[in-house]
């Protein structure tokens, strides 16, 4: 039986393509890992105490949630007090804190009771969307969730202090659930922040790869800044689309403003030039720094497909010749 598992491994591969297909089947649930061992532990201990009369973990959980719900007003007050003492959420008014606190509390209870964090995640994301523009920081969000955790834990201590055994079992139920809630809220907040940042980055990226029409049938693409694979891909699409829309016959790609490129991007660039050729346009690459030129040579990148000119001015002159705006050179190569 011949079996070959052949994963792409060449320089063309970009950051995304590093793993073999076995990884594709792996699922990662970071939020579950945090609560795995305590739960397993408490389940073990529950088994050991199977002789005792008071109900299983689930019943205990329901009981403590019911208790926490009953005392909602008081506990929410205590929590708000802790928040104020810790000087968190100063950007928000008392009314805002109150209304958000009520929602957080109720969602907290639901999450404790059902063990499901999906609703909590949705709520946490929405909450983050609201408070991030207000300037609320990550440490504040984590801080207030932990303060709520503390306030609730204290009240559980107070309630069950007479019976240490029972208190322990109550905490065994409470702690993993409460920890998972804290992690969920924290992670949702951080993710929302990152999403916003990347949205902004995308917008900037799109603006920074303009394809300009220099003359009829002559395009110029000046690239400035960091050229990574994702940007290179975007660049290719924009360029090829522009070639089609402008019926361009010559393209000048200027990389004066690019400091370094790696093998993946270099190959991507070459492929872009080849693809441009298939659409009837020839490419002139200008602005290669000695560094980049050396890199390309070292990488063994095939530059035979395109003309390279050291400076932009020279490149533009060559481009105009190619496009027929200047007297053609003796060796006129079409495509």
């Amino acid at each position, binding site marked *: 039986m011949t079996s070959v598992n052949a994963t792409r491994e060449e320089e*063309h591969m970009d950051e995304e393509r590093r793993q073999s297909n076995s990884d594709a089947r792996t699922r990662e649930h970071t939020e579950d890992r945090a609560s795995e061992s305590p739960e397993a532990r408490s389940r073990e201990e529950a088994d050991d105490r199977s002789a005792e009369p008071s109900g299983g973990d689930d019943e205990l959980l329901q009981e403590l949630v019911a208790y926490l719900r009953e005392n909602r007003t008081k506990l929410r007050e205590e929590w708000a007090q802790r928040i104020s003492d810790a000087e968190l959420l100063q950007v928000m008014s008392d009314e805002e804190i109150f209304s958000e606190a009520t929602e957080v509390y109720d969602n907290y209870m639901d999450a404790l009771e059902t063990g499901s964090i999906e609703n909590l995640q949705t709520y946490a994301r929405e909450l983050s969307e609201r408070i991030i523009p207000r300037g609320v920081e990550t440490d504040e969000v984590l801080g207030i969730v932990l303060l709520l955790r503390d306030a609730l834990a204290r009240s559980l201590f107070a309630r069950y202090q007479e019976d240490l055994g029972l208190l322990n079992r109550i905490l065994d139920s409470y702690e993993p659930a409460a920890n998972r809630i804290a992690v969920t809220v924290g992670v949702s907040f951080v993710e929302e922040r990152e999403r916003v940042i990347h949205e902004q980055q995308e917008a900037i990226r799109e603006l920074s790869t303009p394809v300009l029409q220099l003359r009829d049938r002559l395009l110029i693409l000046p690239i400035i800044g960091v050229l990574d694979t994702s940007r290179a891909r975007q660049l*290719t*699409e924009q360029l*090829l*689309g522009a*070639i*089609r829309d402008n*019926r*361009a*016959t010559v393209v000048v790609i200027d990389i004066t403003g690019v400091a370094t490129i790696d093998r993946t991007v270099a190959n991507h660039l070459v*492929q872009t030039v*080849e*693809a*441009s*050729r*298939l*659409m*009837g*346009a020839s490419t002139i690459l200008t602005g290669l720094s000695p560094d980049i030129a050396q890199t390309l040579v070292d990488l063994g990148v095939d530059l035979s497909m395109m003309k390279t000119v050291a400076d932009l001015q020279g490149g533009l002159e060559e481009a105009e010749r190619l496009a027929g705006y200047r007297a053609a050179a003796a060796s006129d190569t*079409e*495509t």
Partner: protein
Amino acid sequence: MSVAILRQGDVLIASIQSDLSDTEVIELRQQLAELVGSYRLRGIVIDVGALDVIDSFVTRALRAIVLTARLRGAETIIVGIAPEVAIAMVQFRLNLDPLRVALDLDEALAMLDRRNQRGAEDGG
């Protein structure tokens, strides 16, 4: 009909209308070979704009057409390769010479004219 072929003077224009099966590709190749044999042509323009996929089979067929036409003194130019198809062909690393390409029909005809002019100038 999957391919429309018309003759404009001494230039043949083949317009592919939709995705072709391998059999249809071979038929096209044979048809063009026949026409190139029957007429004195200086150029063939093949519009592949309707092809969403140009794979190794189509490329081989196009290459064969180019070489056959050349034997009869005609130059073949492929037009209408879409951006995504161009990227696929390049990434696939298909062997693309001796294919000549232009963006569209107008470009191709202009190219054939230039070639013709040059040929005349060289006294060929």
